[in-house]
């Protein structure tokens, strides 16, 4: 079963708009949520992360909003740029050895 779910599967926004990528999880023991960005032909790379003690984490144009009660989080990319076009993975961990990844959202930013 998919413990980490992402939506939408794909998203297209215009340059300058805000892209919103959604993620939900089932395991209440998850307490660390990184988002990874992947460009074609490359491996995923850490973009931004949040721990469950926080409800918001901001890094430049990228912001994670976290709702522990609903087991949901979202990644907001403001002022989207064509260079942000990539696949974004939400992941989760509970202090164990492994990360559990979602299925990813493919973002296209049209100039």
């Amino acid at each position, binding site marked *: 079963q998919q413990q980490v779910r992402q939506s939408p599967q794909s998203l297209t926004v215009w340059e300058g708009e805000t892209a919103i990528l959604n993620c939900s999880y089932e395991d209440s023991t998850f307490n660390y949520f990184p988002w990874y960005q992947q460009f074609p032909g490359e491996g995923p790379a*850490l973009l931004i992360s949040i721990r469950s003690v926080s409800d918001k984490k901001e890094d430049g144009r990228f912001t994670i909003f976290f709702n522990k009660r609903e087991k949901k989080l979202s990644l907001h990319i403001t002022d989207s740029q064509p260079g942000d076009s990539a696949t974004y993975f939400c992941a989760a961990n509970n*202090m164990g050895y492994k990360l*559990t990844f979602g299925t990813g959202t493919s973002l296209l930013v049209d100039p």
Partner: protein
Amino acid sequence: EAAVTQSPRNKVAVTGGKVTLSCNQTNNHNNMYWYRQDTGHGLRLIHYSYGAGSTEKGDIPDGYKASRPSQENFSLILELATPSQTSVYFCASGDAGGNTEVFFGKGTRLTVV
């Protein structure tokens, strides 16, 4: 900068053949991982290791073996390759404890014909 190097980058194998994917990290990380990436499934964990000499089963270990002969090296072995194992494979490394950044290699595209 953290470095994870995978070889080969591309591989074509025949059904029933043996395939070995290699991974080397220079980060001195304890944990290493093998994932496969398929459309619609995201990244799925095959095997992982928390130190030299250790290997653990991930979520989809069937048909795969792993070997961690040293801190730096972690191999994924397909003893009898099947077309269903056609995929992109990623190796990654990270510090012990889990809630830290994991660094990925560039991937190996494996095609089993």
